[in-house]
């Protein structure tokens, strides 16, 4: 027993505490890492930049990353060019756009409607932008969490669907934990962020969640596991065990009553340090919308596993889709994207090897 314990490889696994960190926390708390023979130490990080730098430097062995981050690292867009691979997708969906009460009222007034049909259509926002222009009022300002994040691209896409761009609306970066305050004090008019920060604004009565990432990009990869390519080469077996443990946790989370249990664990001081009433809703498929309004029923709000389709495989299509978003956002040129091999980052081959071997 003692011997066995001592031989367990140590893995420092970084994450930014959010509702969709659930698979990592469940794998730790319910012993899935242990079962796979790993001594995983979860290392909470306060910013994506620091998580990235520590992963690049090898201070972290692995990390839960925003899905576009391994591509950004491998392209050298974010820090020095560093080969990072994503052997597994950890979650789909989970983000939402929340507007300040003031902007919500302005939208109703400008469009002369009594209430919004949700998910909100972006052309309603366009009216506000146009009116502000004619009245010489300041531009609207939205926030996302990181330049290389689905949040950022989802916000851009929603705006584009009303032919709005960053010429019409400013987009800045604000850490998730500061979003609600920034919205409340009027520094920003809206944001795109992951849980629990949407539910938190609604519960506090500061904002209205008008649509979710599920409404913008149905079922797209949100978080992935990221490891340095050379860490994988030297620790192939450790990465395989890590993926197996995490996939077991994802599967465990598919059962709704387990999600209540997970919400309880997440709310603790060691993890999200937030009340359960802002964590549980999205985990059980409920999108809080506005104070005194009934929530929207959204079963896919946070998805970690699917019994009839393998959503944890980091497919080529998924990587290509993200790369395309980076091009549309002006972060990489088409030429750079054309010369980039997504298969070297989104490693479906690694995933298949890990899980096919297991089933044999």
């Amino acid at each position, binding site marked *: 027993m003692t011997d066995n314990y001592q031989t367990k490889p140590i893995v420092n696994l970084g994450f930014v505490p959010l509702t969709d960190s659930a698979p990592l926390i469940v794998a730790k708390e319910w012993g899935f890492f242990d079962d796979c023979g790993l001594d995983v130490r979860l290392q909470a990080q306060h910013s*994506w*930049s620091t998580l990235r730098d520590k992963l*690049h430097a090898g*201070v972290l062995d692995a990390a839960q990353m925003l899905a576009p981050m391994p591509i950004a690292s491998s392209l050298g867009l*974010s820090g020095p060019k560093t080969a990072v691979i994503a052997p597994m997708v950890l979650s789909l969906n989970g983000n939402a756009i929340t507007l300040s009460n003031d902007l919500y009222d302005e939208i109703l007034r400008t469009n002369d409607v009594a209430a919004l049909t949700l998910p909100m259509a972006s052309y309603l926002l366009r009216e506000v932008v146009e009116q502000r222009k004619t009245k010489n009022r300041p531009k609207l300002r939205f926030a996302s969490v990181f*330049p290389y994040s689905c949040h950022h691209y989802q916000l851009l896409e929603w705006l584009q669907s009303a032919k709005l761009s960053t010429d019409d609306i400013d987009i800045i970066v604000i850490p998730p934990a500061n979003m609600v305050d920034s919205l409340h004090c009027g*520094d920003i008019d809206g944001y795109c962020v992951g849980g629990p920060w949407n539910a938190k604004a609604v519960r506090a009565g500061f904002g209205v969640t008008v649509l979710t990432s599920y409404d913008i990009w149905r079922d797209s990869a949100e978080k992935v596991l990221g490891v340095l390519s050379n860490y994988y080469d030297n620790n192939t077996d450790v990465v395989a065990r890590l993926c197996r443990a995490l996939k077991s946790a994802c599967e465990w989370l598919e059962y709704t009553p387990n999600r209540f249990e997970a919400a309880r664990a997440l709310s603790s001081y060691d993890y999200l340090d937030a009340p359960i009433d802002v964590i549980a809703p999205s985990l059980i498929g409920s999108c809080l919308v506005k104070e005194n309004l009934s929530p929207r029923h959204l079963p896919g709000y946070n998805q970690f596993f699917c019994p009839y389709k393998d959503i944890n495989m980091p497919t080529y299509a998924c990587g290509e889709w993200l790369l395309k978003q980076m091009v549309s956002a002006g972060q990489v040129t088409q030429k750079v994207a054309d010369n980039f091999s997504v298969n070297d980052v989104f490693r479906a081959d690694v995933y298949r090897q890990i899980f096919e071997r297991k089933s044999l």
Partner: protein
Amino acid sequence: MANDAKLSILLIDDNDERAHAFKSALQKSRYDVVHLSSPTSGLLREVDALQPDIIVIDIESPSRDVLDSLHTISNFAPKPVVMFSDEEDTEIINQSVRSGVTAYIVGDTDPKRVRSILDAAVARFDEFQKLRKELDDTKQALEARKIIDQAKRMFMEQRGLDEQQAYAAMRKMAMDAGQKLEDMARTLITILKNLESGVPK
């Protein structure tokens, strides 16, 4: 550094004690320090208002992502960012951070060390900016070249001119209009394209 001009530092640190030590270490130096404790959303505004020459921040601060985004999505000019870190891993992280833009400081605030790190960070950042500008200039020059060549070719085809005639005509037009040759070439391309598509054959 060759010149001794005053440089302003924006210090972002929740640890007041450390911030104080940092300020003391820089007394009677060319660095002026403005300390900001736990900034939330107003950080970009502060950066814009103060226009600091350097930003110093705790590596564990959530505001790091805000600063990181300065290089990518906002209209703010990039600034050299120097980071505090209490971790022993500092040296390892140092080696891997984008060279020329950021450098990590260890937790200690030994005056000599702090100054030399700041001096080095400013110097490296200037160097990096210079290289980047050179690269941008080169790219732009290449781009201008392509535009001018394209305009020249179209002009030659449509007007039946030879290369030298086309080029001389374009230069004259640019000079008469008080425009850069590149800008004149762009206008010319638009006009020639419109003519091409607008005139029925």
